[in-house]
């Protein structure tokens, strides 16, 4: 297993290099001179040339990229072109907010979505089932920014129960986590229900019933663990998509996280920040997926790490 983990981590490095190379290449191929953008329209030609040299923009793209990656591997993510802050330091400052938001959203979604999905499956075609499915479709169809805006309007501005924006206390995170988790809740619920329905039709469930196991025991002892296999994978995918969704949620609730950093960087084409964010997310997602696969192997004895 140790060898497997090492192999996966090595693979992750290649994935990160591949994706960053792709983005770096299209970033540099895009029209417009970043130096001009940074210095503004009234900058002199010499100033621009000097800045270009300073940023390494005068070298061929591939060399630029190799230099960049070399620095990243040493932990140097460069500085923001626009505001001059150290990208790595800024990440460290904002990271806890994004991770807290994502984790809370996942907890909310998993703790509510999986049990609801199980109940919906074993009470298939009942009121509970229909209501859960309706809830899932609604949550899945609501754009997060709208859901966020409306709940902000209602719970913060009208009722005044919760703070509308910013960070600081746990209360600050409640609405953002609900907003971010709504979509995940929907997919967890549906995945669990589908998987449970599928497992319940399997022959080994019939065997368990034929042994004289009660319905409750059949579900808890025989169906649950099997039905969790695809759900676990889904949790990994959802955690990753939370990283994407947090961009929107952070913007609605003015949370100083990685997402809001990225939005400004994208608008101003602040390449070191965009690249840094992508690398961070890719590594984070890669590690989550690795953990999910390890968990999967723990649940399913058929999975072995020998390849």
């Amino acid at each position: 297993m140790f060898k497997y983990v090492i192999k996966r981590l090595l693979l992750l490095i290649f994935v990160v290099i591949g994706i960053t190379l792709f983005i770096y290449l299209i970033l540099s191929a895009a029209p417009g001179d970043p130096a001009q953008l940074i210095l503004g329209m009234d900058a002199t030609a010499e100033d621009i040339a000097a800045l270009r040299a300073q940023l390494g923009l005068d070298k061929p793209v591939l060399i630029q990229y190799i230099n960049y990656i070399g620095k990243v591997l040493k932990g140097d993510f460069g500085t923001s072109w626009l505001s001059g802050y150290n990208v790595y330091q800024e990440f460290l400052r904002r990271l806890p907010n994004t991770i807290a938001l994502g984790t809370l959203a996942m907890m909310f979604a998993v703790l509510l979505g999986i049990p609801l999905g199980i109940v919906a499956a074993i009470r298939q075609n009942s009121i509970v089932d229909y209501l859960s499915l309706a809830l899932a479709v609604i949550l899945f169809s609501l754009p997060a920014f709208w859901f966020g805006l409306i709940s902000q309007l209602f719970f913060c501005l009208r009722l005044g129960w919760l703070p509308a924006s910013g960070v600081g206390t746990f209360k600050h995170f409640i609405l953002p986590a609900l907003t971010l988790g709504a979509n995940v809740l929907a997919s967890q619920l549906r995945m669990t229900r589908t998987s449970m329905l599928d497992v319940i039709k399997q022959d080994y469930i019939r065997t368990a019933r034929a042994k004289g196991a009660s319905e409750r025991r059949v579900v808890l002892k025989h169906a649950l663990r099997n039905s969790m296999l695809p759900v676990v994978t889904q949790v990994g995918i959802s955690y990753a998509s939370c990283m994407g969704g947090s961009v929107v949620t952070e913007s609605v609730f003015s949370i100083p996280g990685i997402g809001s950093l990225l939005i400004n960087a994208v608008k101003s084409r602040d390449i070191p920040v965009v690249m840094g964010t992508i690398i961070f997310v890719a590594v984070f997602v890669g590690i989550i997926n690795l953990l999910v696969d390890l968990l999967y192997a723990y649940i399913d004895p058929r999975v072995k790490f020998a390849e």
Partner: protein
Amino acid sequence: MKKRRKNGGAVSGRSVWGLVWFRFKKNKLAMAGLFVLIFIMLAVLLAPLYVDYQAVVSQKITNRFKAPNATNWFGTDQFGRDLFARVVYGGRISLFVGLAVIMLSFVAGCILGGLAGYFGGVVDQVIMRIVDMFMAIPAILLSMAVVAALGNGTGKMLIALAVAQTPRFTRIVRSSIMGLRNQEFIEAAKCYGSSSARIIFKHLLPNGMGPVIVSTTLTLGQVIINIASLGFLGIGVASPTPEWGTILSETKAFIRYYPYLGLIPGACIALSVMAVNFIGDGLRDALDPRMKN
């Protein structure tokens, strides 16, 4: 008593799709979704016939913040523009860019996934490793990165979103084809000397289409949301061109006092996405009836 399960196979196309349509029709939610979607599509498509584009852009400050009424069905915004006209024209972008994104990534996914699944081996390895790479980043972040590189604009956003969705389609098409590749009717086709292209396009793709179609529909919903999200974040369609997300981003400062400004455009997105999702669910149940009962 074993129920007969047929697996696509050599059944003639018409009867299979006839059966799918028969089952789909029985699903009330899916049919409701279909009608709502057709209604919205027609409403926005035919917009020039009943709404003057001038109403979308012409500002009339004296007329601002009018609540919904007989002349301005959805009220007016902070510049006195008619919200109904903006929403209707905005839908053209939200929905049709969404469709275009889906079509682009669908075609690209079918080609890449078809090649990977059919040839296997090195081709498969190379394509799938690249797909893995792109899948390492959530779709919306990848789109944002591409937008950062290409710059703002509807066309560029379209490409950015399509790039982000293609890996998913590639994966689904490939796994679908992998499942079919070794089945007897493909062997049979190879035996009487069909060419690779013919086998991919005449045999594998049509038979493996079920899951792909379902996922296409469900992805359309997410793409519509993503377009609106980018618009809302100010990196999608640039104002004053109306788009559901952009409209919300412009009016969000005022929804505290004029909630209809926020409720209406958002509801349009939610309604369209919901309709699409119901259709997708209906298709899934119709294509795979084993999931029901």
